[in-house]
C-alpha cells in the first residue's frame, strides 16, 4: 500500500520537476541571449503535444520496444534513488540498490534505445549512438573516479548511508571532499547531455542523432524519460554532495541550485567534437581525479 502511493509520487515528482527545470533552462538561456523565451511550462506543452500526436511511425517490433525500454530504465533509475533523508516517503526501492547500481541503471535505458535506433536502419541514428557511447567512455572514467572517492570516504556504496553521514553543512561532501565534486562536475554536465558536450544529438551534424527516426508519441516518450532521468541525476548529486534533503522544498532548492550551476556553465560554452570531449575528460577531470587520489588516498 505504501509502495502504491510512494512510486507514483516519485515518478510524478521527477516529471513535474523535470519540465519545470527544463522550462526554466529555456527561459534562462533566452534571457542570456536577450530575448523573452517561452513560458516555463513550454516543456510540458511540447511533451503532451507529442504524446497526443495522432500518428506514429514504427519500424518494427524492436523499434517499438526501444522507447519502452528507455522509459522503463528511467523509471527504474528514479525508483532506486532516495529522494528524501530520514523519511519513509519518496524512497522507492532504494533500500535494495546502491550507488554503483544506479550509475549502471543510468545507461541501461539509452543502451536499450540504441537497439531501436539500430533497427530503424538510419545510419545517422547509429552514428549518434556511436558518438554517445564514445562520449560515455570518456565521461564515465572521471565520473566514476570522483564517485569512488566519495564511496571510499564513507566506506560504503549505499546512498542512504552516504546521505546519513552528512548531517550539517560542515559535513556535506561538497565541503569535506570538494575535489571529488570538481572531478565529477564536468562529466556530470556531459551525462545531462548539456552543452558543451551535447554533440550526440547535434541537429546540424548527425540529423538529431539517436532520435532521428523517432516521431509522434515515441518522441514524447523520449522527452518524458529525459526529463525524469535528469531530475534523478540531480537528486542523486544532492544526496551525495549536498547532504540530501529532509523535505521536498529543500530538495527542490538544492537540486535547483545545482541545476543553475550546470546551466550557467553550459550556457556559455560552444559545442565540442566527440573526440575533443573525450580527450578533455581524460586530461582535465581525470587529471584532477588523479591529483585527488594522490592527495586523499596515497598521502594519508
Amino acid at each position, binding site marked *: 500500500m505504501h509502495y502504491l502511493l510512494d512510486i507514483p509520487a516519485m515518478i510524478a515528482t521527477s516529471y513535474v520537476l523535470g519540465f519545470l527545470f527544463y522550462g526554466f533552462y529555456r527561459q534562462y538561456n533566452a534571457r542570456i541571449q536577450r530575448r523573452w523565451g517561452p513560458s516555463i511550462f513550454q516543456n510540458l506543452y511540447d511533451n503532451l503535444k507529442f504524446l497526443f500526436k495522432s500518428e506514429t511511425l514504427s519500424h*518494427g517490433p524492436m523499434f517499438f520496444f526501444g522507447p519502452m525500454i528507455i522509459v522503463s530504465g528511467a523509471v527504474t533509475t528514479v525508483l532506486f534513488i532516495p529522494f528524501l533523508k530520514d523519511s519513509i516517503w519518496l524512497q522507492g526501492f532504494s533500500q535494495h540498490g546502491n550507488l554503483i547500481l544506479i550509475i549502471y541503471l543510468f545507461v541501461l535505458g539509452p543502451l536499450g534505445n540504441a537497439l531501436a535506433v539500430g533497427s530503424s536502419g538510419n545510419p545517422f541514428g547509429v552514428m549518434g549512438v556511436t558518438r554517445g557511447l564514445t562520449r560515455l567512455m570518456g565521461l564515465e572514467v572521471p565520473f566514476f573516479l570522483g564517485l569512488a572517492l566519495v564511496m571510499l570516504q564513507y566506506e560504503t556504496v549505499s546512498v542512504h548511508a552516504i546521505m546519513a553521514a552528512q548531517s550539517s553543512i560542515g559535513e556535506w561532501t561538497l565541503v569535506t571532499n570538494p575535489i571529488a565534486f570538481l572531478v565529477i562536475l564536468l562529466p556530470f554536465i556531459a551525462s545531462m547531455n548539456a552543452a558543451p558536450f551535447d554533440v550526440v544529438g547535434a541537429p546540424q551534424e548527425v540529423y538529431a542523432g539517436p532520435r532521428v527516426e523517432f516521431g509522434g508519441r515515441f518522441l514524447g516518450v523520449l522527452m518524458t524519460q529525459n526529463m525524469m532521468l535528469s531530475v534523478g541525476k540531480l537528486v542523486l548529486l544532492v544526496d551525495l554532495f549536498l547532504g540530501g534533503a529532509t523535505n521536498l522544498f529543500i530538495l527542490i532548492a538544492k537540486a535547483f541550485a545545482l541545476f543553475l550551476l550546470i546551466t550557467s556553465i553550459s550556457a556559455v560554452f560552444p559545442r565540442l567534437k566527440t573526440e575533443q570531449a573525450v580527450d578533455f575528460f581524460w586530461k582535465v577531470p581525470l587529471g584532477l581525479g588523479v591529483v585527488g587520489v594522490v592527495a586523499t588516498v596515497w598521502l594519508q
Partner: protein
Amino acid sequence: MTALVKLLFLAASLSPAATLLVWDGALAWPLFGDVTLLFDLAPLSAFFLLLVALGAPLAAIPMLRDDAEWPTYALYALLLVGMQVLLLAGDFIGLFVGWEIMTWSSYLLLLRSPRTTLATAQSYILLNLLSAFALLGGILVYYSLTGGFAIQAVADLGPWQGLALIGPLALAFLIKVGTVPLHLWVPCSYDEAPDTFSAVLSALLSKMGIYGLILLLTLLPGGLAGGLSGGLGGLYGHLLDGPAAGYVLGWIGVITSIVATFKAIAQEDMKRLLAYSSIAQVGYITTAIGVGSSLAIGGALFHALVHTLIKLLLFTTIAGIVLRTGLRSFKDLGRLIYRMPISFFGVLIGIIGLAGMPPLPGFASKYLIFVSLIDARWLLLLAAMILSSTAAFLYCYRLIYAPFLGHANSPQARTATEAPWQYLVPEVVLMGLLVALGLFPGLGVRLFVDPVLTALGLTPLGSPSWGELATPYGGYDGVVVMAVFGGAFVVVTSLFFLLRGRMRQAASPYDLSYAGEVPDETTPLHYGAGMGRELRRIPLVAWILGHSTQGLYAGLVRQTQAAAGLLAGLYSGRPQVWILLAVLVFAAALTVQLLAGGI
C-alpha cells in the same frame, strides 16, 4: 554407426559432470621413490570442474551437427580428460600431465580447421609450449624448495626465492590467460579454430589459466588466508590496503583489458572481436586476483563463471550465423533479427552480460570487483577498469547492430534461416542460466563462490537471501531490480497503448529520414563496417590501435640487435685493440681496488 559415435561423444562430454558428482575421496598412486600421484577434488578445483561440466556438453551439442569426424570427437574427449586430470591433480606432476594433454589435444583440434594458417598454428603451439616449459621450470623450483610435488603452501619463502617460484609459474599461467603482451596466440587461434570449438577455447581453456593463478596464490606462505600479512603482501609488502605485488598483477590485468577492448572495437570479424573481448574479460579476473581479498577472489570466481556462460553463448550463436550465411565479417551481414530471432536474443543476452548491465550476472561480478578495488583503495586501477568496461559498450553494440539490425548487406544475409536446433538448444539453456543467475546472484554466491572462499581460508561473502548480493559496503537485490524493471516495462507499454492515435508500420526499410532523399538498396546505409573508426581521432586510442604486439616484439628485436651491434663494435679484427682493452680493464680494476683501499 555415425549415431553410435555421436552418442559416445555426447556421453564423453558428460564425463566432467559425472566426475564432479561421483568423485569422493582422494586417490593416491605411488609413482616412484617417495613421489605419489594425488588426485583430489578440492573446492577450488571443484568450482573450475563445474565450469567444465557445464560447458563441455553445451559446446558438444553443436559439434554433433557436423559430419561425424571421429578424430575431432576423440580429440575433444581427450581434451576433457586433460582438463579433468589438471583440475583433480593434487600434485604438480598430475597438473603438468593434464596441462600437456590439454595443450596438445587443443592444438590438434585447432589444426582441424581449414582456416588455420601456419602462423596461427605456430604461435599457438610455441607460446603454449613456452607456457608448459615455464610451468615445468616453476615445478622444479618448487621441488627444490619443498622437496616434494604435492600442492600446498610453502612454509617459508624469501623474496628472491619467491620470485624464482612465482616468476615462471605466473608466466605459464598468464600465457594461458592471454595477458598483453603474451596474448599473441589468442585472437588468431580463437578466430581460426573450428567455429564450434572456439567456444571451448574461450570459455574453458582460458579458465585453466585463472585456476593456475589462484592456485599460485595458495602456494605462498599463509596462502590467501593470511590477509594483509600473508600471501603476496607478506612477501613483497603492501600498497594501500592490498599486496604490492598484487598491484602489479592488477595493472597487468587492467592494461590487458584496455588494450584488448580497443583492439576489439577495431575488428572487422565477429569471432576476432569476441576473441579480443575474451582477453579483456579475463583481464578483469586477473586484476581481481591481484587484489586477493575475499571480495576480489569472490568477484573473480563469479566473473569466471559468468564469462564461461557468456562466451559459450556468444561463440555458439556466432557459429550459427556463420553456418547459415557463410559470412563472418560485420560489413557483410545485417537485418538478421527477423530471420534469426532466437540467435538475436542469444547475442542480446550475451552482450548485456558482457557489458555488465544490471539485471544480468555480469553486473554482479563486476560489482564485487569494483567494491574490492574500493576496499583496497586502489582507485586508479578502478578508473582504468571503468575505462575498459565502458568502452566495451561500443563493441557490444557493434556485435548486435552489425549482424542483426540495420540493412542486409549481402544476398546471404537476406535469405538466411534460423540456426539448427543443435545450436539453439545450448543457446536457450545458457540464456536461462544467465537470467537465473542475474535474478539470484545471492544464490550463485552461496552455491558456487562461498565454498571455495571458505576452503581458501577467506571470509565467505554470504547472502541474506537468494536475490541479494551482499558486501560489507552494501549490496543490491537482483530480484527487485528485475521486478521493478519488468513492472515498469509492462506499465509503460500498456500506458502507451492507451494513448490515442494510430501506429503505422514503415512500408519499407528504406522509409528513412534521409534529408528529403529516398535511399534505395544502392545507398550505403549500413554503418557496421565503419563503426568505431572515428575513435582513432582520440589520441590515446589512436596510440593503442597504432601499435601492435607484433610491433612491440619487432621493436624488442631491433633494440636487442642495436645493443648487440654496440657490443660487436668491441670485437674488431686487430689484436692491438684487444690488448689495449685488456690493459684498460686491468688498469681500471687496479684503480678501483686502490680507491677502495683493497691493496
